[in-house]
């Protein structure tokens, strides 16, 4: 039995200690926005926030987590689906199949939290999620647009590179 704080709520989860957070989220709590794809912490489809940092939930056994740690999933990123990244993603029609996008958005959200106006190099270094449909250029534009939305800037980021 594990006690976890997920999207602001304390929950009791009855699973084997070694169960990865990903599967506790998906199968115990029905939070299926967090996706399984590789199971080895590479692809990023399972990205959630642990105390505000992006982590690959497929590699974190629930036994290593404390009830004091804040876990945020895509379902808890915003109340009404209106996080600046979600607005930007909607504006630019970023997703294709959409399977990797919750993880992509969670990775980008953690980046924006630490770095409100990331450069292209910052994006390259921090967004390591795999997308087989190939949405990368819109993801990049989406992060820059979200940075603008967040700061209310009309002029756009000065850090936008060419690779859009």
């Amino acid at each position, binding site marked *: 039995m594990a006690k976890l704080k997920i999207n602001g709520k304390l929950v009791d989860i009855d699973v084997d200690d070694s*169960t990865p957070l990903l599967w506790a989220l998906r199968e115990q709590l029905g939070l299926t926005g967090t996706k*399984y794809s590789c199971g080895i912490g590479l692809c990023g489809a399972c990205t959630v926030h642990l105390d505000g940092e992006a982590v690959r939930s497929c590699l974190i056994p629930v036994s290593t987590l404390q009830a004091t740690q804040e876990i945020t999933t895509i379902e808890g990123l915003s109340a009404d689906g209106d996080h600046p990244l979600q607005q930007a993603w909607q504006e630019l029609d970023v997703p294709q*199949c959409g399977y990797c996008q919750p993880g992509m958005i969670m990775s980008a959200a953690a980046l924006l939290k630490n770095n409100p106006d990331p450069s292209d190099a910052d994006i390259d270094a921090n967004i390591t999620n795999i997308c087989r449909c190939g949405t990368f250029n819109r993801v990049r534009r989406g992060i820059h647009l979200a940075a603008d939305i967040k700061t209310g800037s009309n002029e756009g980021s000065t850090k936008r590179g060419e690779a859009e």
Partner: protein
Amino acid sequence: MKKQRVNISRREFLIGSTTVGAGFSLGLYLPPGSGMAQAAEEASSATSEVNTEVNAWVVIHDDDTVIIRIARSEMGQGTLTGLAQLVTEELECDWSKVRTEYPTPGQSLARDRIWGSFSTGGSQGIRGSHRYVRKGGAVAREMLIEAAAESWDVPKEECSVSASVITHKPTGRTTTYGKVAAAAAEMIPPIEVELKDPKDWKIIGKPVKRLDTADKLTGKQVFGADLQLPGMLNASIRACPVFGGKLASFDAAKVNKMPGIRAVVAVEDNAVAVVADTWWQAKTALDALPVTWDKGANADLSSASIAQMLDEGLTAKKAFVGNTAGDAKTALKGAAKKVEATYAYPFQNHATMEPMNATALWTEDRCEVWCPTQNGEAALQAAAKAAGLPADKCEVYKIHLGGGFGRRGAFHDFVTQAVAIAKQMPGTPVKLLWTREEDMQHGHYHPITKAKMVGGLDNKGNLNGLHIRISGQSILAAVNPSWMQNGVDMFTFQGLLPDGDHAISYTVPNLLVEHAMRNPPVPPGFWRGVNVNQNAIYMECFIDELAHAAGKDPLEFRRKLMADHPKSLAVLDAVADKAGWSKTTEKGVFRGLAVCKAFASYVAACAEVSVDDSGNLKIHRIVAATDPGHAVNPQQIEAQVEGSFVFGLSALLYGGCTIKGGSVEQQNFDSYPSMLISEMPKVDVIVMPSGGFWGGIGEPTIAVAAPAVLNAIFAATGKRIREFPLNNTDLRPA
């Protein structure tokens, strides 16, 4: 004169028609946020029975909401939105009130395939159904107008329609689709309707937003892997890792007492599955399950033995001819200069982000399957066969795909397995989800081929003869032999054919294109782009080699062969012009070109790359042009073109499955990487529809991705890379 028709209400259609054996209705089972749930919710929350099916394609609610039925599958390529645009164009409905739903394959069967093909592959979604879906919209529009005219007792010709509002022009009276839909459904559908002239299109050609984005941003979108049904159990599976091998035995007693385990079952003759309360429990137990395999005849199969088989085909006497002109062999004998090169293209895995999965519920007299599929009808056939029931006792509910790329169209092994498991647990829904490792090992791989290219130049450096000998796998021989012509797989020649959707882009006076079919026992499949992926590398890199041998500019060398291929020439010129081919690049940056006709569209690319002294490749920019004839949604075409570079370049840089001991060696994204955002070049997309035809969008550009980059690498390094992927290749300048 009126003809009474049965008016199927929304509720009956969605729920009554999908009754589950045990008396449950589908509505109870629907995942929140799915298209099915949304539609069912709308149906059940409606207060009246005027949610009317006007015809098979169009359902109209009394609040003027229009539901457009889409038979093809959405897997990211945007076909759902594009097809809805086509119907809307003719229907003249209010786009802001358009929603979509999938009819089920079972409904299609019951209604004599009224929605046509469900198959979503070969970039066919729009180009294969544009005529009948537009007609569906036009027929519904005529019925709606007729109903309004009749209610006013005026001639139909005096009425016009715009954005779901019908106006009687002489009097200015108006009504809406929602108000007349019920009456419209009782009108006799016109047999002939005239489709709009493209110049009058209002929504076809517009970069409208996709209809399926919102739920993909919040986690609400339910994919097959996410499905939850009441009482559902979860299964994890392992099939014999050796192709063609069988399951010998397993020791269930070793795992039976592990938490949550419900069953350990053999699946067909080659796999074993653990069924548990949760998938993680099932997977954990499967990892601990002792299994022995009967590896069978392919236990010694290796990449080296396959290469040997293909090498033999490169010079074998007999081969199928796919294209011929003049006398290539004689021309090559008399050539002033002869150029030869051998290329090879490896197996590739589709590696959809969502691993294979299906959920099945089997009882003695009914079988239902929920799955992501590119072909609902084929999924239904697979389900029926595995269930041992007639198709009309089965049903398939399609769910958005977490990637398809060809893996989920011709093959429904995951459905067969899910049903085989569910059959052993009657009345209990079971969700089968593959691990990534299972997905890597049991693909239907991009076919492996090699090509020996021989070109002859005359004394002025003109290409006079070209002989292409392809050796390797046929997809059709393994997957669909009935499509072959006298034993020949014409698909093998995609991009090199004399005419049609995959015609060669050049006129070569003496040409011979052959295929020596060599089929190693690794299952091949349609992999996004199919055979143009390798054929465009063979052709476009070798054309570059020939231009170099002739001492000519690669653009001019190509242009000279393209006088009879004006549309191909136009896209090539467009990328050269936009990239500034004739101008110098930034220091250290080099360009490469490629052009191809694929899936009836004309595509070209100009890549700009640099390679540093340590051999590190950077792809700076790609200029890409597409002429798809009619461009239904330009912003979605841009998305598909950009995405095609990710797919094509991931294959070039990292893709490639190798075989050892009869198994695929790659297990996961660590050994089968995919490119990341940091490697993604800027892509300038030129959408240049010339009209008059309908070309595909989802696949063609993949063909030019790799050769454009390879030709740029040659320009940068002087190295011709002819075997892939590149990640093991020394790119340091020669």
